[in-house]
C-alpha cells in the first residue's frame, strides 16, 4: 500500500474549509431572516411567563439587552462574531450556554450515528454484492423488494415497532434511554445494550439505499469489459468479484456517502427522540417546542457543518480509492 498523500488531503480539506465560510454565512443569515419574518418575540421567549407582569421599563431594558430593537442583520453579525469566538449565546429552555448543551450531547449522537452507519455500510455492501451476483434470483428479489418497502417506511414507525417486538414482546433489549432506570453510573456494557435497538433501527433505515446502490454499481461493473476479460483469462470468480467488480462498482457509492449525511442526521433525530437517547435530537425538539432561538440557530449551523464535513470525507475517500482522480482537482 502506498503511503497516504497527507499534503494533498490537507490542501483539499483547507480548500473546502474556505468554501464552507460563505455557505455558513448565507445559512446563518437565512436563519436570522426567517426568525425576523416570523411572529417570534425574543423577549417573551427569553423571559417566559416571568415577563407577563413586568412593567414597560423592565421590558425595554430586556429588549436592549437582547438587542431586539436592532435590525436582524446587525443581530446576525453580532451572533456571528461571538460564535467565531466560541460563544453561541445562552439557551433559554435549558438555562445554560448553548455550547455546553451541545457539547454534552454531541458525543452520544455521534456514537449512535457512527455505529449505525458502520452497520449499514457493512451489511448493505454484503447484501448488495450478493444480490448483484445473481440478478433475478430469489435472494435478489427478496432483498430488493424489502429494500424498497423499508425505504418507504418512516423511521420513527420502524423504531416503535422494534420497541414493541424486541423490548415488549421478547423482552430482549431495553426500550430506551442511555442506561437502566435507577442506575446512576454510566457503564459501557449498559450503554452498549441500550444502543443496540436505536443503532439497529437507524442502520436499517440507512440500509436500503446503500444496498440498492451497491447492487446497481456492482451489477453494472460485472457487465463491463474488464470483468469479461478477467473471466476470459480464467481468473477465479473470487478474484473477478473482489479485484475487478467491487473496486469499480463501489466507487460511485463512495461519493454518495457524503450526500447521505443529511439523511443520517434526519434519521438520527427521529430515532433519538423515539428511544429517548440523550443526544442532540432531544435538545432540538425541546428547543423547537419552546422556540429557543439561540439553540435552534446553533443546531442548524452545526448540522450544516456536519453535512459539509461529510461531503469532504466522501471526496477524500473517492480521491484515495480511485487512481484516476487527483485530490488536487476535486
Amino acid at each position, binding site marked *: 500500500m502506498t503511503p497516504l498523500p497527507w499534503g494533498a488531503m490537507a490542501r483539499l480539506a483547507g480548500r473546502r474549509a474556505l468554501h464552507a465560510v460563505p455557505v455558513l454565512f448565507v445559512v446563518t443569515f437565512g436563519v436570522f431572516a426567517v426568525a425576523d419574518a416570523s411572529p417570534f418575540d425574543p423577549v417573551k421567549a427569553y423571559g417566559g411567563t416571568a415577563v407577563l407582569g413586568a412593567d414597560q421599563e423592565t421590558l425595554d431594558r430586556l429588549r436592549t439587552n437582547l438587542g431586539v430593537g436592532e435590525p436582524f442583520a446587525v443581530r446576525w453579525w453580532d451572533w456571528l462574531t461571538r460564535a467565531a469566538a466560541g460563544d453561541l449565546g445562552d439557551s433559554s429552555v435549558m438555562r445554560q450556554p448553548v455550547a455546553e448543551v451541545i457539547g454534552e450531547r454531541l458525543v452520544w449522537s455521534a456514537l449512535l450515528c457512527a455505529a449505525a452507519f458502520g452497520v449499514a455500510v457493512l451489511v448493505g455492501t454484503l447484501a448488495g454484492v450478493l444480490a448483484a451476483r445473481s440478478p*433475478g434470483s430469489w435472494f435478489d428479489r427478496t432483498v430488493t423488494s424489502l429494500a424498497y418497502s423499508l425505504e418507504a417506511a*418512516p423511521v420513527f414507525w420502524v423504531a416503535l415497532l422494534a420497541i414493541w417486538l424486541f423490548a415488549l414482546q421478547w423482552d430482549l433489549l431495553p426500550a430506551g434511554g442511555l442506561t437502566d432506570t435507577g442506575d446512576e453510573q454510566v457503564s459501557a456494557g449498559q450503554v452498549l445494550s441500550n444502543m443496540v435497538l436505536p443503532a439497529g433501527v437507524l442502520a436499517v433505515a440507512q440500509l436500503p439505499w446503500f444496498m440498492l*446502490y451497491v447492487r446497481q454499481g456492482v451489477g453494472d461493473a460485472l457487465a463491463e469489459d474488464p470483468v469479461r476479460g478477467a473471466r476470459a483469462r480464467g481468473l477465479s470468480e473470487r478474484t473477478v468479484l473482489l479485484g475487478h467488480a467491487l473496486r469499480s462498482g463501489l466507487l460511485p457509492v463512495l461519493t454518495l456517502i457524503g450526500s447521505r449525511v443529511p439523511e443520517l442526521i434526519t434519521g438520527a433525530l427521529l430515532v433519538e427522540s423515539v428511544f429517548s437517547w440523550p443526544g442532540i435530537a432531544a435538545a432540538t425538539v425541546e428547543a423547537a417546542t419552546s422556540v429557543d432561538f439561540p439553540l435552534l440557530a446553533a443546531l442548524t449551523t452545526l448540522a450544516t457543518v456536519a453535512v459539509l464535513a461529510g461531503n469532504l470525507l466522501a471526496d477524500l475517500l473517492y480521491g484515495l480509492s480511485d487512481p484516476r482522480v487527483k485530490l488536487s482537482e476535486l
Partner: protein
Amino acid sequence: MTDTGPGATAGTEAEPVWRSRGAARRSTRTVRLYTSVTLLAAVVLAVLLVPPVVQLDQQAVDLSAKLLPPSWEHPFGTDDVGRDLLLRCVYGLRVSLLVGVAAALTATVIGTAVGACARALGGWADRGVMRLVDTFSSVPHLLLGIFIVAMFRPGVWPVVISVALTHWLSTARIVRAEVLSLRSRPYVDAAVSGGASRWRVTVRHLLPGVLPQAALAAVLMIPHAMWHESALSFLGLGLPTHTASLGTLVQSARGSLLAGQWWPTLFPGLFIIVPTLAIAGLAGAWRERLNPRRRSELML
C-alpha cells in the same frame, strides 16, 4: 441490463434466453404498473369518497370499546378512547395527502420558476442563484423544517410552507438542467434567430418542454412531503394532535404501544408506505416512457 450468467455471453444459444427474460421483465413491469395504479386509485377513492359518503364520525369516542384489537367490526381495531382506527386512518391519510400535494405543488412552482428564471437571466444571476441552491441543500431538510415550524408555531400552513421551502431546491436543479439541454434544440435556435426575446423564448418554448420533468418531480415529491408532515407531526411540531394525520396518529399511539397494543401504531404506518410505493411505481413507469435509456437508474 446486468445479466452476467454464463449463458448470457455464449452467443447464439443465449438468444432465446435473452428474449424470454426481456419478456418476463416487461410483464413484471406491467404488473407493477397496474398494481401501482390500482393501489393509488384505491387510496384516492377512499380519501375522496369515504368522508362524504360514509356517515360515520371519526371523532366518535366510545370508552367502552377502547383499545379493541382488530376484528370484523373494527378491521384496524380502536384507539385509546375507542375511536375506529380504520376511519381515523382514512381521515389521516386525507389530511396527510392534502398537505403533501399542497407542499409538493408549491415547491414545484417555486423550483420551476427559480430554475427557469436563473437560466433565462443567465450569467451572474444564474450562477448566484444556483450557488444559493447548493448552499441551502447542505442544511438537512427536517432540521430546517423544524426551525421554520418552530418559528411560525405549528399548524397546517406552517407545515406546508416549511416542506415547500425545503424541497424546491431539487426541482430548481432539475428544471435548470433540462432548460440547458433544451436550449440547444433547433426550434429554440429558430425562435432566437427569429428575434424572440429572452423571456418569450423561456415562457413559450422552454417552459413547456420542461413541464413533463417538473411534473414528474412534483409527483415524486408528494410522498416526501407526506413523510415530512408525518415526521413533524410525530415530533409534536406539526399538526395539532386532535387533527388526525398519519403522523399525529402514530404519535398518539405511543402510549398504547408501550402498553403492548400494536395496532394503533402499525396501521397508520402502512398507510404511509402503500401510497409511497404506489407513487414510486407509477413515477418509475412514467420516467421510463419519458426517457427509456435511463431505465436502470435508481429511484429513491
